[in-house]
């Protein structure tokens, strides 16, 4: 299978950017990615772009052409929407297009602007990623849905809030030196446990923050990279996508995410690797419980045991399988439409050796992303490998 090279990556700081509109954020991230790639702008064939709530936040749909313009491109441009995996889906479609020989150079990315609206408004916008009839009308919120998954997990497997708190503590510790991260400060288990509750048992510190930001990457075919003699040592060697029923109530289990299991299985097979080959992962920890479910669905932990990973130091910086060395969504921030490509950006730098945390994984060759939309009704998984 042809691999797809990551020629360049770029990302704005994930933070509150009240002075920058969406087009400015994406213009900045995409320009950085194009500069990093050394690919002439004119060689870019198309833009695959992810955004979730532009109509809510900026009264702006139809962002494909707007963002092509912001990137200085006049090429076919399409916006993908799959809630929090909007740009994950954009990456997957771009990989498929390059592999199929229909394009040699594609710009992928995503952007979300969220902090310009009050929390209650963002809560409403995020809730639209669930089932409007059966969940939205009952007053379900996005943290509420994950709270239902967490309580069901607690009842089934005996995990506690303190176990989940270890995940938030770990991801904050990972982000300490990451200048692109929204939170660069240490927190303790007590801080997490004493923070106000959003939806029991999920507290403020169990949840990823509301964030503005954009991310982008330039993907090229192997052939193009060779011809241009590009310095692009990291490839996307596997891609997978899974879908589940939108409403949590319709799932066979509240404590499993089969869409992620299917996406992982497909991505592993595509890259001809298995979970044991993975050296590090960036997973979708929109809430602490989400990281637990991700670790189990990616095959790193048996069902009902993933909650022990952070507590036992296995997924920390010095552990066997560092997870969310960027700080994850929890500490890096979660501008939803930008998160999928941001995972690619962070892992590319970690594998290339130019990330502030690269020294923690200096021998790493294989990494995986897990990017989930809604309550894991949409998932994309990508395998990244150092190939040269």
């Amino acid at each position: 299978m042809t691999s797809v090279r990551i020629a360049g990556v770029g990302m704005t700081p994930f933070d509150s950017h009240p002075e920058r509109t969406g087009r400015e954020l994406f213009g900045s991230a995409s320009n950085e990615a194009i500069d990093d790639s050394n690919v002439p702008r004119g060689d870019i064939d198309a833009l695959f772009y992810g955004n979730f709530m532009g109509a809510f936040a900026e009264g702006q749909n139809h962002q494909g052409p707007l963002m092509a313009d912001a990137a200085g491109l006049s090429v076919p441009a399409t916006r993908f929407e799959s809630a929090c995996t909007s740009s994950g889906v954009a990456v997957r479609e771009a990989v498929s297009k390059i592999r199929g020989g229909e394009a040699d150079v594609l710009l992928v990315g995503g952007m979300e602007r969220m902090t310009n609206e009050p929390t209650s408004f963002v809560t409403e916008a995020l809730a639209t990623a669930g089932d409007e009839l059966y969940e939205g009308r009952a007053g379900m919120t996005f943290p509420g849905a994950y709270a239902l998954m967490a309580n069901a997990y607690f009842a089934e497997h005996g995990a506690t809030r303190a176990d989940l708190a270890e995940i938030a503590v770990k991801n904050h510790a990972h982000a300490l030196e990451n200048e692109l991260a929204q939170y660069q400060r240490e927190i303790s288990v007590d801080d997490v446990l004493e923070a106000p509750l959003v939806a029991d048992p999920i507290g403020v510190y169990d949840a990823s923050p509301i964030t503005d930001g954009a991310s982008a990457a330039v993907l090229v075919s192997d052939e193009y990279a060779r011809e241009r003699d590009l310095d692009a040592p990291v490839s996307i060697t596997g891609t997978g996508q899974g879908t589940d029923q939108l409403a949590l109530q319709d799932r066979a289990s509240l404590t499993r995410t089969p869409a992620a299991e299917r996406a992982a299985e497909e991505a592993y097979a595509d890259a001809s690797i298995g979970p044991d080959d993975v050296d590090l992962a960036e997973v979708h920890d929109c809430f602490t419980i989400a990281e637990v479910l991700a670790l189990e669905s990616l095959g790193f932990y048996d069902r009902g045991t993933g909650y022990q990973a952070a507590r036992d130091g296995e997924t920390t910086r010095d552990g066997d399988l560092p997870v969310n060395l960027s700080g994850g969504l929890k500490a890096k921030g979660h501008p939803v439409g930008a998160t999928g490509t941001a995972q690619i950006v962070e892992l590319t730098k970690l594998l290339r050796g130019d990330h502030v945390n690269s020294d923690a994984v200096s021998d790493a060759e294989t990494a995986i992303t897990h990017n989930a939309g809604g309550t894991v009704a949409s998932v994309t998984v990508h395998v990244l490998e150092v190939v040269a």
Partner: protein
Amino acid sequence: MSEPRTAFDSFVDALAAGEGYFLECSNGHASLPPRHVCPDCGDASLERRSLPERGEVESHTIIRVPAPQFEADAPYPLAIASFGPVRLTGRLENVDPDGGDVEVGLPVAVDVRETDDHRFVVFTPQ
């Protein structure tokens, strides 16, 4: 009032009247309306079956930060409860507002509440 009624509205009407139902395809898969086909197998033959009167809480939470339209109600307990082969999402009524007396497995009945702005499913402990 002659606003168009959707299939979902009719379903909630039936719940409110104590005549809740679910759909069953000819292969025995259960689902909730509106449906053209069974989500499990695509079978287009869907028959109404009575919803069991008693359900069981499968998980619960307390929503403390709601969307703007529910701000007056917050905090409110919310649950997913199973009724035979299907599950519903609704508010819990007649329970401790801090959820102290709610446990997985709590038996509940289903009903519907209506306010000025919206109508929603509720569960009452049995």
